[in-house]
């Protein structure tokens, strides 16, 4: 079979065997009918015989030793502290399932910790805390729950009526305002006798004998007026006496000629 077309004068190969190709590539002699292909091979080969191109400045840096030629494996990674590197090695040695399990546990612990610390949004916080309560003896206060631990939701809203409203708590319907909850702020500083005032308490102290007995400055009338005869003894007032100017940070323009 001729390697060329049916027309023997065409000289166009219709197939090439691998041996002929290897001979051409290796520079060995081949049939003269492959002359053009052989010339092509030589021409292509010559394209790699020129001078070396000018190296770039970066490559010059490599030649001059300014650029590291053998970067350590991992390149820019920093070495872990010894304990961490040991833990990382152990983690790397775990199987895929163990890594997935460990990752889930770490994520759950992180969310639980954040929930316990109260840094999650209220809704998420509440759900996380209830989750912790379900699997541990720890209990949290839930802002939406009443004193009996009932939780008010959209479904049971309005089902229950306060004992204050029904009068069960003090025999009177509604809240009269006379009682202050023990949970209100400052409850621990509140006197046992609500009628006692600060003056009464001062009279019970060791320094009671030295206190000033002049009560004339006090507003005994209860109408906001004082009975003092000595204005200078009074506490500084924000209202200056008539005739005095008010110190100002704004310079007075009309007084420079006085």
């Amino acid at each position: 079979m001729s390697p060329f077309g049916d027309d023997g004068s065409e000289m166009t190969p219709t197939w090439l065997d691998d041996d002929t190709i290897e001979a051409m590539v290796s520079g060995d002699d081949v049939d003269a009918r492959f002359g053009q292909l052989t010339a092509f091979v030589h021409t292509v080969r010559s394209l790699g015989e020129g001078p070396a191109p000018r190296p770039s400045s970066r490559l010059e840096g490599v030649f001059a030793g300014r650029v590291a030629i053998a970067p350590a494996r991992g390149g820019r990674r920093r070495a872990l502290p010894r304990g961490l590197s040991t833990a990382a090695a152990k983690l790397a040695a775990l199987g895929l399932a163990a890594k997935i399990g460990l990752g889930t546990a770490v994520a759950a612990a992180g969310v639980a910790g954040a929930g316990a610390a109260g840094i999650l949004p209220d809704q998420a916080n509440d759900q996380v805390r209830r989750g912790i309560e379900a699997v541990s003896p720890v209990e949290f206060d839930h802002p939406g729950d009443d004193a009996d631990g009932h939780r008010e939701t959209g479904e049971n809203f309005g089902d229950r009526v306060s004992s204050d409203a029904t009068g069960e708590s003090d025999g009177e319907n509604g809240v009269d305002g006379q009682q202050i909850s023990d949970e209100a702020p400052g409850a621990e500083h509140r006197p046992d006798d609500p009628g006692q005032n600060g003056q009464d308490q001062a009279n019970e102290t060791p320094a009671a004998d030295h206190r000033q007995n002049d009560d004339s400055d006090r507003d005994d009338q209860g109408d906001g007026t004082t009975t003092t005869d000595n204005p200078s003894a009074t506490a500084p007032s924000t209202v200056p006496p008539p005739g005095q100017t008010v110190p100002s940070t704004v310079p007075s323009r009309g007084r420079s000629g006085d």
Partner: protein
Amino acid sequence: MGHRDRFGGRFGDVLAGARRGERWGLEQIFTALSPVVAGYLRTQGATEADDLTSEVFVAVLRNLHRFEGDEAAFRSWVFTIAHRRLLDERRRLRRRPPPEPLLAVHERPAPDDVEDAVARALATQRVRALCERLTTDQRDVLLLRLLGRLTVDEIAAALDKTPEAVKALQRRGFLAIGRLLQREGVPL
């Protein structure tokens, strides 16, 4: 394959010196292989073939510690890196084509032998004109085979193909070149 020896039989010494960071070893590797790498990249149509050649050898020299093997394996390794850099450049140019220059500026310094340089430039144009008529795979195989002087197995490894596929591409590529030369009478 004596014509694959570009280190005068001292490849082991050169490699060892380069690995120690000695300048003569690093430069020897570049001097020996950069002309064929630049020729390969130029014939493949790289826009800045000389700069790309330098990039290839920066990668080669910085990763010498990873290489193990003889000169033939080293040459194959270098051309594998060169081919991948070429593909990187093509991808980059597809994303962001370079602006068209207002004037054709030849920044390369005048070579010592102008006649040879001109002849080589013309030959490069002719070979490129022929190779552009091939499929990409055929062109890659033929140029790695002829310029890189890689074996079929080495090309198969570099292009992630089977040796049989490389042989088929090589055969079809040569046949296509033969038909073009016959039909169009392109002088070489």
